[in-house]
């Protein structure tokens, strides 16, 4: 269907790229202790980028009728004609083979009714197990499946496709009487059906029991353990924005002149790992068709590189690092594929703390200043640690610092790895101990 558009573009003397994506999403969600809605939707569409004398135009649609695609091409050319010359934008010419590492027939073939059944089981088991521990929670969550197909073509002859599957199970909620903090357990899987419902429900009930009768704290002390979710939020909204080649080149980043400099404690490695199916964001190529790869961003505390798409790598005289994110209706923009910090110890970090806090979730990280790296977040779920053990649940203190300060204060990384996602970035690492 797309060959004709590419041929037409060539005939009109324009370079053209077609990005097609189809996402099938089946989800059964529960809210306030009842199965709320069952959804089964498919969203497919194309984004057409054209280069007319080095001027870029972009148009997108979900109407894939040949006549409409023709109209779309004309619209993109019309926009390109009034755009400015940008010699740095090029289309990828090295195709990437789909390794099949990101797709499981097992997930794809799960019947819709099984997703509804699993979601119901997750709700019922989490309720039951919590009640057995003496807690009456109000729960939300669900089970959802994504099946993604991406195809990219352009007039250089480039043609690459991949398929990806993903299953997510999540339960979150709190107890009203006695009051508790809000707890959450989430599981992602790309190749298998992931953790069993029973295990997720068990973990949730245990967490909720530990979060009963929280007290409000005003201040934190200088010894903290940050959960992957909490530190991931902070890093995504500060470091994740500052590390893009565009923001570095445009001086919109506190990392602008820091490549090659020490910006974190020696124990810190930070890895952007786009081609690994260990991460929920893994895929064989990025939104421009560049093959994804393992990028070591921080090595022993030293900032080694930024992340790039084709345009900004070309401006910097480098190669794209495979970090272009997009959908069919948005053009490529640069983002981290993963935030992964390898563990430095196999020990449970809590045991080493006489008095400190475990920060499980924070709010307000999206208000961080990505230009300066400063942030201020409120702890919404945390625990006081006394003599190497969780003592009581707490909430409320403000944690304000800067990204570089927190990276420089990391003492150890260890314990069970947890994964979450923020937009198209996967966050996966073990709890992190910081000492200010």
């Amino acid at each position, binding site marked *: 269907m797309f060959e004709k558009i590419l041929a037409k573009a060539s005939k009109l003397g324009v370079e053209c790229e077609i990005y097609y994506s189809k996402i099938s999403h089946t989800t059964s969600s529960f809210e306030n202790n009842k199965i709320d809605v069952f*959804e089964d939707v498919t969203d497919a569409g194309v984004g057409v980028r054209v280069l007319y004398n080095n001027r870029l135009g972009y148009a997108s649609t979900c109407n894939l009728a040949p006549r409409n695609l023709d109209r779309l091409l004309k*619209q993109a050319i019309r*926009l390109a004609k*009034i755009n400015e010359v940008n010699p740095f934008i090029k289309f990828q010419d090295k195709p990437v083979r789909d390794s099949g590492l990101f797709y499981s027939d097992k997930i794809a073939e799960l019947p819709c009714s099984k997703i509804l059944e699993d979601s119901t089981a997750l709700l019922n088991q989490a309720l039951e197990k919590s009640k057995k521990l003496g807690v009456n929670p109000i729960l939300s969550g669900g089970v959802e499946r994504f099946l993604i197909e991406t195809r990219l073509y352009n007039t250089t002859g480039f043609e690459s496709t991949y398929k990806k599957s993903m299953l997510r199970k999540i339960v979150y909620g709190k107890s009203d009487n006695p009051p508790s903090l809000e707890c959450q357990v989430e599981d992602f899987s790309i190749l298998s059906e992931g953790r069993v419902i029973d295990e997720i429900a068990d973990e949730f009930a245990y967490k909720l029991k530990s979060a009963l009768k929280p007290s409000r704290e005003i201040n934190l002390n200088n010894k903290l353990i940050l959960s992957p979710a909490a530190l991931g939020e902070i890093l995504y909204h500060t470091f994740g924005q500052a590390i893009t080649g565009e923001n570095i080149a445009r001086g919109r980043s506190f990392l602008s002149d820091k490549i090659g400099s020490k910006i974190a404690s020696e124990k810190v490695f930070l890895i952007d790992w786009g081609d690994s199916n260990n991460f929920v964001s893994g895929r064989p190529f990025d939104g421009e068709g560049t093959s994804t790869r393992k990028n070591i961003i921080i090595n022993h505390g030293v900032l080694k590189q930024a992340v790039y798409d084709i345009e900004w790598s070309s401006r910097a005289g480098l190669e794209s690092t495979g970090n272009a994110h997009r959908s069919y209706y948005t*053009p490529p923009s640069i983002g981290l594929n993963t935030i992964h910090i390898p563990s430095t110890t196999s020990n449970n970090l809590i045991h080493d703390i006489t008095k400190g806090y475990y920060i499980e979730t924070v709010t307000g990280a999206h208000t961080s200043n990505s*230009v300066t790296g400063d942030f201020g977040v409120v702890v919404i779920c945390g625990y006081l640690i006394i003599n190497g053990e969780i003592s009581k649940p707490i909430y409320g203190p*403000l944690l304000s610092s800067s990204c570089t300060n927190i990276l420089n204060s990391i003492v150890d990384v260890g314990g069970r790895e947890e994964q979450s996602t923020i937009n198209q970035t996967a966050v996966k690492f073990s709890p992190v101990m910081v000492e200010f």
Partner: protein
Amino acid sequence: MEDLTSFALNQPIFKNFDFVECRQELIQTISIRITEDGVKELLFNEDNGLSIRFLKDGLWFFTFITNPNKKSLKKIFESNFFQIKPAYFKKIELYDTDVYVDNVTVKVSKSLLNTNIEEIADIPLSVYESLLDLKKSEASFIKSFNILFNSSYREEFYSNSEGSRITQTHPFNRLVINLTGLDSGKRARSSETVGGVRGLEAFKTGGKWDPEPLITRSINRVKNILAGSTPPKGAVPVVMDPSMTGTLIHEAFGHLCEADLAAAGGVIKPQQINERIANENITIIDDPLNLDGGWIPYDQEGVKGVKSVLVEKGVLKSFMVNREYARLFNQPPAGNARASSYRYPPIIRMRNTYLKNGDLSFEELVEDIDKGVFVEKFIGGQASLLGAFQFAAQIGWIIEHGELKQPVRDVSISGSTFETLMSIDGIGENFDTDIGTCGKGQWVTVGDGGPSVRVPKLTVGGI
């Protein structure tokens, strides 16, 4: 666009379902992004789809198709999705509402439909030229900028099995100016947004959204932030501008008044209706009709939007509900069931939420403060269901002996929602609202605002 919602509703498959509704939308959008290097993105998007939501055996089902036609709709009705039989759920009852047959169109002089792309692009390009000139002259501290401009036009058809048939047609335009400044190693940023359901003529000189005052304000703010010092830390008297007041009302209070979140264990309980939750000077409104914010004459359940009084003189008067929660909370729905597009089922959302203004001048608000902080222009923040909040302001000002003194940068405030609403001891006569987007799994346009207010004690910190 041909209205296919009635065709979809009349399919035999829906004959025995408890309730069915269809929404069909066509949204056309031109987006332009310009940086200090010139035009970076020029995009056109056409989005056309139809969603079906239905109640069957106590469970909501939702699906959509893009680019619908009669053939593709018939095909979707043959899928397994419509055959699933959930046998074990409790019946859901909806609040009875009026049946509406209506056509609402916002008439404007210029929109995406009757204006050529060059003329539309001129709006952000004129901002670009002004900023470049300033960057080369008196505002050399401006390091970079992003100008984002969206112009869209939306047609929406709604039909349900109770007989409602509603058409809503309107433009939507928005201009965002983000500046980054750099001086002596210090960085600063500023963000300004205007937009809503008005025509492109609103961006003309002297128009409602004239970009020039916006540019001047942004440049001055960056200059002041660069000159600013670190804010004091601790509990001090705080005066908020309308933007920060709006954030307090929307983020810290409004979400707690959404019935689904209240039922999920929020700190405001359904049984608190008619109880005092704020001091007697506090009245909070959620209004569906603001051309410069959330404009929703009918929501995505076909309910006509009416103004809700959430708090009247400090007393909780209502929650925001959809038809399902209206039944559970026993209060009529006011049009708060919103979906960001046909891709999403409607959920309970705010529209334009604001604090009613008082009678104090700004001078009167600050005159009794020996040492405090004035926080101006929200840049981000969030609040928890437990009633704790943290908001960042783009800039702050030290108040000393009743007067504004030097600026402070990266200032944030945090506290307890109810302690704050109880303790506000001064409400300004001024009033303004901001347009924004609110995320709750899906993004919708909202407005929030109010007057300037004074809080005797609030935790101030640097970020």
